[in-house]
């Protein structure tokens, strides 16, 4: 079943004519994802063409949804306009909005998150690599790829992966695939302090998904989302979970690349997160090289 998206999910891309959006729209088409529409205000009526595919472009998300039945969106819109783009997707009734954009002001996200409370739309991100539900073809072709992750490193299977970081997710996925172990769905929730979906949200989905048999949860310094997920897992977890926390060597008070990766006022340390993992029975990888191995030993 996978979570959030399946190979049948119809995707639209907001910002499809921008360089970043276009490049990854092409890669999603190459991967076999059902990319059915693009949205760029002012370019409605044009087409996004790649490898024989002709994807219609619309002025508004609402139009795109009406004409194509898209249920999910990838947002590649530049930071000053990204929160607006997210809310447009919410208004159009999408099930899922995945915001890839890095650098959205926190205040914009505080407002957007407040504005979308109670809506049916789930937001993933922002500042995230996106979601991949691998397909059954060669190099996992035929899956649903929303965002910027490399598709070919995946393999269809039964491990769920959730992480705040892009390359660290790829690292974990590749460790699994290299050992012949596939993934149900891989979700990058993003490295910003305000995000739409937390570790815990994704963990709950994985626990409820019959196809997911084990979970890799990757966290990093900053905030307390990992601790919250660990606490829930301790009480309700029914599947093996292994994890890694990045940033044990990060100096306090400094932002480590991601806007949310900061230890401030003694809060959000790797140490606290690792001990929360251990207390919850989550297997902690001693190094980022051992993420897959740590989980597989538990299974």
């Amino acid at each position, binding site marked *: 079943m996978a979570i959030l998206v399946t190979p049948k999910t119809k995707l639209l891309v907001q910002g499809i004519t921008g360089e970043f959006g276009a490049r990854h729209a092409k890669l999603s088409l190459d991967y076999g994802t059902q990319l059915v529409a693009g949205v760029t205000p002012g370019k409605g009526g044009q087409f996004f063409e790649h490898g024989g595919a002709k994807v219609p472009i619309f002025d508004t998300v609402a139009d795109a949804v009406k004409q194509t039945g898209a249920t999910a969106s990838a947002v590649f819109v530049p930071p000053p306009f990204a929160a607006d783009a997210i809310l447009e997707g919410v208004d159009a009734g999408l099930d899922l909005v995945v915001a890839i954009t890095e650098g959205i002001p926190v205040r914009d996200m505080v407002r957007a998150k*407040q504005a979308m409370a109670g809506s049916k739309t789930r937001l993933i991100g922002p500042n995230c690599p996106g979601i991949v539900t691998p397909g059954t073809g060669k190099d996992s072709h035929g899956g649903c790829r929303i965002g910027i992750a490399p598709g070919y490193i995946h393999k269809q299977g039964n491990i769920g992966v959730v992480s705040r970081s892009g390359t660290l997710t*790829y690292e974990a996925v590749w460790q699994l695939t290299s050992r012949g172990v596939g993934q149900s769905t891989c979700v990058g929730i993003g490295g910003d302090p305000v995000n739409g979906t937390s570790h815990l949200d994704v963990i709950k989905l994985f626990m409820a998904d019959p196809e997911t048999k084990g979970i890799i949860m990757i966290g990093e310094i900053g905030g307390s989302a990992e601790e919250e997920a660990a606490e829930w897992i301790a009480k309700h977890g029914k599947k093996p979970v292994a994890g890694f926390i990045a940033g044990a060597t990060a100096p306090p008070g400094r932002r480590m690349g991601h806007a949310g990766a900061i230890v401030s006022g003694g809060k959000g340390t790797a140490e606290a997160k690792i001990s929360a993992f251990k207390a919850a029975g989550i297997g902690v990888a001693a190094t980022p090289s051992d993420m897959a191995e740590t989980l597989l030993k538990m299974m």
Partner: protein
Amino acid sequence: MNIHEYQAKQLLKQYGVAVPDGDVCKTPEEAFAAAQKLVATGHKMLVVKSQIHAGGRGKGTFKSGFKGGVKLCKTAAEAKDLATAMLGNVLVTKQTGPDGRLVSTLLVAGAPNIKKELYLAVLLDRGNSRPLIMASTEGGVDIEEVAEKTPEKIVKEHVDPGMGFQGWQGRKIAAALGLKGDLANQCAKLLAGVYKTWWEADASMVEINPLCIIEGTDGKDQLVAVDAKIGLDDNALYRHKDIQAMRDLAEESPLEIEASKFNLNYIKLDGSIACLVNGAGLAMATMDIIQHYGASPANFLDVGGGASKDQVTAAFKIILSDPSVKAIFVNIFGGIMDCNVIATGIVAAVKETGLKLPLVVRLEGNNVAAGKKTLAESGLTLITGDSMADAAQKVVKTVVK
């Protein structure tokens, strides 16, 4: 981005928050004039405050041996002497590290008669993505210690971002702080101003410690922000030209400034193994694995998803200008990026910089075979690692004998 105390107070003042009278000074003569003005307006006690982006100034020591980056005095002549002792000298505090910070700006202000010190801050509660106001009757001390030992003395109030700060919330917090009458009204007004500063300036944090009840020059009790600290959301700076102008490059590491010109995210650390990595999460994890195998990272460096030849070359130059670097660890997971393009970039960068230090490269991902071939045929004496762990152990071995 961080700003100085005097800049934070300027912002707060714009939103109606009372701060002590004072002026910014760059020379002892300016300090003299500022102090004279304060004395003339009835201030009996003055304070000379070093402006650096670090806490613990009062208990800090200058490299000249002069003690205290924040000093009280009574006359303009004394203020001038203090300014002479501070300006152009390096102040070391518990937060600056042993290198300290050069003091080139002072705030000379009135030092009111403080009756009580309170604490106030506005920040983002990441748990529910809402603005959070924190206030305490325990001001002028380390708030983390208060939170740990007497958490009941900290009042927390969330603000609905759609509604903004409400009057009743101001009254509620004032009451919780034990303020009555006119002071309670002042507090509610001040809270609204502090929240507005946080919201409209796109601050990540506004902290007023201490917020003081003072005896005003008119003899009435007043609520004044005696110290202030503001951190700003870098992502929102594009819409605040006035705040951008407050950036003080002297407070930032020259290497970090250089790195930012190439869109590299670089943070200097104290170890001996430099890292060059794509992606923030992987970059942190690379630092961790170096430590795991017994050495220390010299930096955090995220070259981003692209990692072009120019970026890699710039990154090498920045890494190599840190004299404590003894070896370099390049850890790239080329997801979309072609590993061969990265390998070509590494070879070119090594040749251009004339690298003499041990270099360990771990490449994985797209077109990795071609990338490894490029490295092998380059004639460079670099070491390759198969996994992150393998490469990390190899690089650690080059520095730990």
